[in-house]
């Protein structure tokens, strides 16, 4: 992506990639995680995903209709927002929760700012932040993995926060997603398959995800529980929503910096804020807030990392 995204003067070469093509490619890259979520949490996960996506599409069409704009539901961006919002929800939530979340994400997170390309914050994460501030009890009761009846279980990070001990889960279990958590974040394997597809298609670059995950791992390793350099960085990388956030939400074109230098700053900021919230904050998990905060800083980052115009001093 970064090679295609250098902002420069003409002449430009036209490429057939369009916004909607990239959006649908990201949707495709998220399908393995949907399959994994249904395997791990059962049909309620599928129900939540479908409701969230449908609500996002309906909201987008409705708002574009009443504001007399061109209805652009088929460009995939509303579909993607609904899908990502669902991935940020526990599998078993009341049916209206994804509806309210998707409505907020599209209406307040995106259309209020003028629609696709104008929004400051990642709409799906804005929806999640709204839901978690409004109905924390539904947003933090997670379904236990591979249990047919709805047993709730805490996420590994919640256990860590409450007991100060790394919970007894193997790295392989975490990697495959045998843990409580939001429905799209648990299966790291499926997420990495999707991310690899996006890398292969050059729709995302390494700058944000690698710096995000890397600095977070380094930070939790340095400030470990038994003094410096004792932290379990593998556990911290495999649990929580950091893989989902770093590859699929921090890389959102609209809300992340344009230049490579800016993207590295953005990724570092996300990683440090995530680690700080996880280690010393009130919440067990900080990925979504970290990304939202750095979304807010993106205009400033863009301003100070602007590429130099030829012949002018910066």
């Amino acid at each position, binding site marked *: 992506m970064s090679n295609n995204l250098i902002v420069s003067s003409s002449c430009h070469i036209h490429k057939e990639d369009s916004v909607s093509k990239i959006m649908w490619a990201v949707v495709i890259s998220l399908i393995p995680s949907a399959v994994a979520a249904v395997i791990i949490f059962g049909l309620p996960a599928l129900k939540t995903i479908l409701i969230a996506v449908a609500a996002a599409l309906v909201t987008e069409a409705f708002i574009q209709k009443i504001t007399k704009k061109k209805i652009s539901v088929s460009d995939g961006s509303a579909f993607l927002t609904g899908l990502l919002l669902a991935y940020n929800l526990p599998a078993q939530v*009341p049916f209206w929760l994804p509806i*309210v979340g998707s409505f907020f994400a599209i209406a*307040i997170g995106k259309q*209020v700012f003028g629609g696709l390309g104008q929004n400051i914050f990642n709409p799906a994460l804005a929806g999640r932040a*709204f839901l978690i*501030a*409004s*109905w*924390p009890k*539904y947003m933090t009761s997670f379904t236990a993995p591979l249990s047919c009846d709805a047993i709730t279980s805490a996420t590994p990070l919640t256990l860590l926060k409450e007991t100060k001990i790394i919970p007894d889960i193997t790295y392989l279990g975490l990697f495959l997603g045998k843990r409580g958590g939001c429905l799209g974040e648990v299966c790291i394997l499926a997420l990495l398959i999707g991310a690899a597809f996006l890398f292969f298609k050059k729709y995302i670059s390494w700058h944000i995800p690698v710096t995000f995950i890397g600095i977070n791992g380094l930070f939790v390793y340095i400030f470990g529980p038994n003094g410096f350099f004792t932290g379990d960085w593998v556990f911290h990388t495999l649990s929580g929503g950091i893989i989902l956030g770093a590859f699929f939400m921090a890389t959102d074109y609209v809300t992340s910096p344009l230049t490579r230098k800016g993207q590295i700053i953005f990724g570092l900021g996300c990683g440090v804020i995530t680690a700080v919230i996880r280690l010393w904050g009130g919440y067990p998990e900080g990925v979504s807030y970290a990304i939202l905060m750095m979304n807010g800083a993106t205009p400033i980052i863009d301003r100070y990392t602007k590429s130099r115009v030829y012949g002018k001093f910066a």
Partner: protein
Amino acid sequence: MGNLLKEFSKGIIKENPTFILALGLCPTLAVSTSLINGVGMGVAATFVLIGSNVIIALIKGIIPERIRIPCYIVVIATFVTITELLMKAYSPALNRALGIYVPLIVVNCIVLGRAEAYASKENVIRSLFDALGMGAGFTLALLLISGIREFLGSGTLFGHSLGFTFDPASVFSMPSGALLVIGLLLGFFNYLKQRKA
């Protein structure tokens, strides 16, 4: 008389202190968690506004130009003190709920703004009607905001349940909910204004 009515009504719609002038947002954001608090704040500010506007219109001839703001503040602070002592005596619960925002009416931009922009130039009767209108506009705005926030955030109105229950969205009881509601209402009123123009 019609002229006076116009002075009164402009504060409610055309120059609504909250939605059009965007003044006094700090107490509006802070106390609009419930209707009782909103009305209490609105009435207290209206009382101070009436008192300060009338007194300042009366003494505007003898206030030296260069120290007028300190003079206004002294007048306003007097009325705020009266309000606070009355509230402490007759409604201690409301006083506790509003907390620091009652003394802070001293620096409320609406009160100081009307003193500077209106009462220092106009006669007593007109200043009184201006204060009544601005106070009513502020109180109505607070009613609207706190009504929405109490309904969505706690599922009640004036502390009473509404006969049906739903899961209230606690975000509306938090500061972020206040910013959301005020932002959306400001946008809505701006839209109405533009459509009329």
